[in-house]
């Protein structure tokens, strides 16, 4: 078993990070896009974004488009690196579990 980033591993934050990571590195996504795409409520998404922002994983920009206030989210460099490390850690856990599975029947023999 390996250490996994607890902030990212929470299911909703994981999806938010995965969605932002899948975009171009200079892309910023509208709050409503993420909310609708991930089928979340304003409050739920907002709470998780705060947590990610305080960890320094994403930056939040508020702007007016026309007369409408909009919130844009962008994965920071630290967030991108943290997510890459997180995925790498997941792969290591899976590999380790696979190796353990293979060894177990051998021990039984």
């Amino acid at each position, binding site marked *: *078993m*390996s*250490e*996994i*980033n*607890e902030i990212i*591993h929470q*299911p909703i934050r*994981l*999806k938010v990070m*995965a*969605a932002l*990571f*899948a*975009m*171009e*590195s*200079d*892309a*910023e*996504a*509208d709050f*409503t*896009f*993420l909310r609708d*795409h*991930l089928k979340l409520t304003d409050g739920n998404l907002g709470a998780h974004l705060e947590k990610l922002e305080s960890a320094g994983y994403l930056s939040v920009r508020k702007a007016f488009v026309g007369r409408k206030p909009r919130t*844009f989210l962008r994965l920071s460099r630290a967030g991108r690196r943290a997510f890459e490390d997180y*995925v790498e850690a*997941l*792969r290591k*856990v*899976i590999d*380790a*579990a*696979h190796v*353990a*599975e293979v060894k177990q029947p051998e021990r039984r023999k």
Partner: protein
Amino acid sequence: MEVTGKEAQEALQDVESVAKSVQGRLAYGIVGPILVLWGVVWMVCFALTHFMPQVAGWGWIVGDSLGIVGSIYLGTRGARAGAVRSESSKRMGWKLFWFWFLLFIYADIWLAVLWPWRGQQLGMFLVTLVMFAYVVMGLWLEMRFMLWLGLAVTVLACAGYVLSFLIPGYLDLWLGLAGGSALLASGFYLTLRWR
């Protein structure tokens, strides 16, 4: 924090599925309405070529112009209203614009060099050229749907062309129905799937 192999596998699957859905929505969200537009243009203009060949030339000029202006409008509107903004996608938008613009310039050169051609040859040339561009875009932008759509319509068009030697006089109608409806159906599918 420690997780089991099963939990890690599930988390990785979540990551892959979210990434796939986001990329699909960003790539195809704008393309869908553009395909619907060109499906209608093809159906109407090829039908006009079959039923009213005397006005087909003007029909194509009007249809293509509407298609080009409409595509630019839908593309820029989609990008502006788009929930995701980035300099790299803006640059990609311009690259795509120049790609299509130059393709049509080259098509004009080839058509001038290859003159004289029959109407059916012109229809086949333009359909396969546009589908070739879809295939290139599919490979270039890793949009598998565009790749298969381009190949499928090309096969349909070629089958119609071969059959037109056995049953003459219906190629334009076939190109309009088969090509146009393929574009229309794909456009509706993408629009509904990724809206």
